[in-house]
């Protein structure tokens, strides 16, 4: 039925026809937009399929463990492409994010073979990797027999490729030459400012350019707006409080969480620079932060921005992205700005969260699973997600250059592209990779809470915390 149109799409995919020509031609052929989209994806898939035997594991059945997340939704929307291309059957279990990682830990620690691949964050691989629960994917990526030639691994942003690989040595630099690739980046978020333009205009301020300005401007906003508070940042008793804006600003001043010497780790949160940063951050929260700050997670920070209870957030850019749509009161009012906390820094150094796909080491169909992984992280699927679904941020440079994607974002989310482009070069994980990541970072958050509640002073508190951390490192044989 669509044979003539198929030819059009093939020409487009083979770059013999421009997008405009394609749209005109399909319009003339009377194709609806959705049919055109479907055929385009098919053509791209066929091109993908042409040089590589995608059908090698035909008939296999794979099972995925997924988090309830827009990235998973995007993949499910496109899953038919995978099934028809490889002849594989695929099913999945979706769990809500609140309990997702508990399920993953439980499944992996019991040696379950039920799931072949699953979603994870990079930090979790610092646990799963050394525990032997996930497979080093280098053996697949580097093998031309297993990976299709158009995969273009180098297209994935270098900071992300490095941040998802670790050699397992505590303190070992992420992305080192001997690093194991524990997971494949799928979608990521970097930390910057999302702000309410209307509120900013009302008070007459611009997005801050460094930490000092941020403290000042948040205070001004809190005072002059008569209701909303100036700056939303996370504060719950969790590693996730240190990870977003806090660490991004912290790293911008060149501060570290640990120093590594002779393979031994030592806490570095009590340097003079760190103490100064903490003092400013704590004061900012006390003066202009959310009133219930110490219970604030991703959700509260976002909800407040979306409902007009806060003027800006220093958190994941995609959080600001989501709050600018849906049924949020402030949708359409939000703007985005890159942020470098250090006035002397040349560019932002945002810490990142990378949702990735990992392979269960206890799985029984690793080669077939790799086929799924390379499809789900392919250029084609990334483009699909970026153009058609809410798949931000894509991890591939080529997708960020894609016109259709850029136009879509620019139209509804002004400033978003700029904040990303400016920040992407410096976007990576600034934590030191070590097995005690969760314990110690949660401890850090706990102490931050005590500082904000004025239970402990900043300077002495950090000294005590560093000593406690050093002790724990020594007990675990790391320090």
């Amino acid at each position, binding site marked *: 039925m669509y044979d003539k149109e198929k030819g059009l799409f093939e020409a487009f995919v083979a770059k013999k026809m421009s997008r405009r020509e394609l749209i005109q031609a399909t319009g003339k052929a009377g194709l609806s937009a959705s049919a055109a989209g479907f055929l385009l994806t098919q053509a791209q898939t066929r091109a993908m399929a042409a040089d590589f035997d995608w059908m090698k594991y035909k008939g296999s059945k794979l099972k995925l463990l997924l988090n309830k997340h*827009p990235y998973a939704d995007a993949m499910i929307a496109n899953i038919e492409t995978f099934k028809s291309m490889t002849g594989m059957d695929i099913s999945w279990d979706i769990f809500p994010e609140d309990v997702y990682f508990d399920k993953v830990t439980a499944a992996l620690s019991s040696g379950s073979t039920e799931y072949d691949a699953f979603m994870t964050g990079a930090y979790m691989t610092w646990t799963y990797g050394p525990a032997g629960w996930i497979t080093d994917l280098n053996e697949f990526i580097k093998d031309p027999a297993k990976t299709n030639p158009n995969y273009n691994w180098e297209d994935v942003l270098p900071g992300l490729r490095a941040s998802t690989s670790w050699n397992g040595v505590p303190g070992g630099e992420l992305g080192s030459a001997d690093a194991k690739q524990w997971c494949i980046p799928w979608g990521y978020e970097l930390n910057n400012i999302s702000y309410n333009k209307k509120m900013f205009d009302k008070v007459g301020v611009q997005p801050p350019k460094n930490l000092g300005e941020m403290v000042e401007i948040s205070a001004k906003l809190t005072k002059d707006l008569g209701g909303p508070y100036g700056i939303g940042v996370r504060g719950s008793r969790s590693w996730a409080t240190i990870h977003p804006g806090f660490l991004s600003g912290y790293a911008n001043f060149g501060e570290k969480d640990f120093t590594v010497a002779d393979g031994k780790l030592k806490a570095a949160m009590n340097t003079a620079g760190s103490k100064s940063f903490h003092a400013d951050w704590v004061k900012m929260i006390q003066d202009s932060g959310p009133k219930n700050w110490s219970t604030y997670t991703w959700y509260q920070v976002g909800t407040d921005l979306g409902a007009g209870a806060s003027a800006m957030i220093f958190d994941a850019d995609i959080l600001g992205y989501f709050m600018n*749509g849906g049924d949020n009161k402030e949708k359409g009012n939000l703007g985005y700005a890159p942020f470098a906390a250090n006035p002397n820094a040349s560019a932002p150094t945002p810490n990142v969260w990378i949702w990735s796909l990992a392979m269960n080491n206890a799985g029984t169909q690793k080669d077939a699973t790799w086929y799924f992984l390379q499809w789900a992280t392919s250029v084609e699927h990334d483009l699909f997600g970026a153009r058609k679904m809410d798949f931000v941020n894509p991890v591939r440079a080529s997708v960020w250059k894609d016109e259709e994607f850029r136009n879509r974002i620019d139209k509804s989310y002004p400033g978003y592209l700029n904040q990303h482009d400016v920040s992407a070069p410096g976007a990576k994980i600034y934590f030191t990779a070590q097995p005690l990541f969760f314990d110690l970072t949660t401890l850090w958050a706990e102490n931050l809470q005590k500082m904000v509640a004025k239970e402990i002073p900043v300077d002495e508190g950090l000294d005590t915390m560093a000593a406690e951390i050093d002790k724990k490192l020594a007990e675990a044989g790391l320090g």
Partner: protein
Amino acid sequence: MDHTSTFEKTLRGVLITLVLVFFLFPIVWIFLMSLQTNETILRIPPSLAFTPIIDNYTALITGQLRTAAGSLQLNFMQNMFNSVLLSVCSVAVSLVLGVPAAYAFARFKFRLGEDIAFTLLSFRFAPALLVLLPLSLYFKSLGLTNTYVGLIWVYQLICLPLILWIVRGYFEDISPDIEHAYRIAGNSWWQTFRKISIPLAKPGIAAAGLLAFIFAWNNFVFALILASADKQPVTVGALAFVTASGIQYGQIAAAIIISITPTLALALYAQRYLVEGLSMGAVKG
């Protein structure tokens, strides 16, 4: 019984009203939230003026959620089914095992009696977290992972001790005389148990069964760890509305209201039996 002064009556009325307000206000609030969109819920300051919508309920029941980004599949009714199945079966099994056992402890002084009773109670001491990892390992080797049977078995840890000790208390309170009278009249032990003991202890059995049902219904950690997505109970289902693109309070509220309904229906049905404590009191003394 008529020496309750008007002062007392008013005081009683005021106190009951306060109690009802404290416990039911949040429920009413949740119900109101279930009829609103997220945007109206998150207003500053919160307000009671809104136009009710039933979209949240239709989304949950039909399984289709229309959002700005398109249509999402929901699985909530499957979660409801799981919860009903697990709770009903677990309580049924616990009653069948627990009521006779409670009778035994109450009526007979047998060696090891108290030890067995205490052991059965002690299963409630084990925090779930203690046994989760070993349990998942053993389930795996026994092939019980992701089975209703496996979960119902684990749920006995929650329901059985409760039913046992509550019903035991009731049996202890029933005077043995009427049972002896029935036995003397020529009935077997089993007939006595069925026709006399159980009916007399109905309030206790009803209360225990209802409470066991509630605790089984609200438990989710065992299902989470030991089963796959298709067997998850309502609590996990409701948590799915805590998404990266925002907490869907309206849907969570609707989910809570829907998930309360079966338990409420059961409670209303059981309240008949809870009342019958009166007749039992007449037997004693």
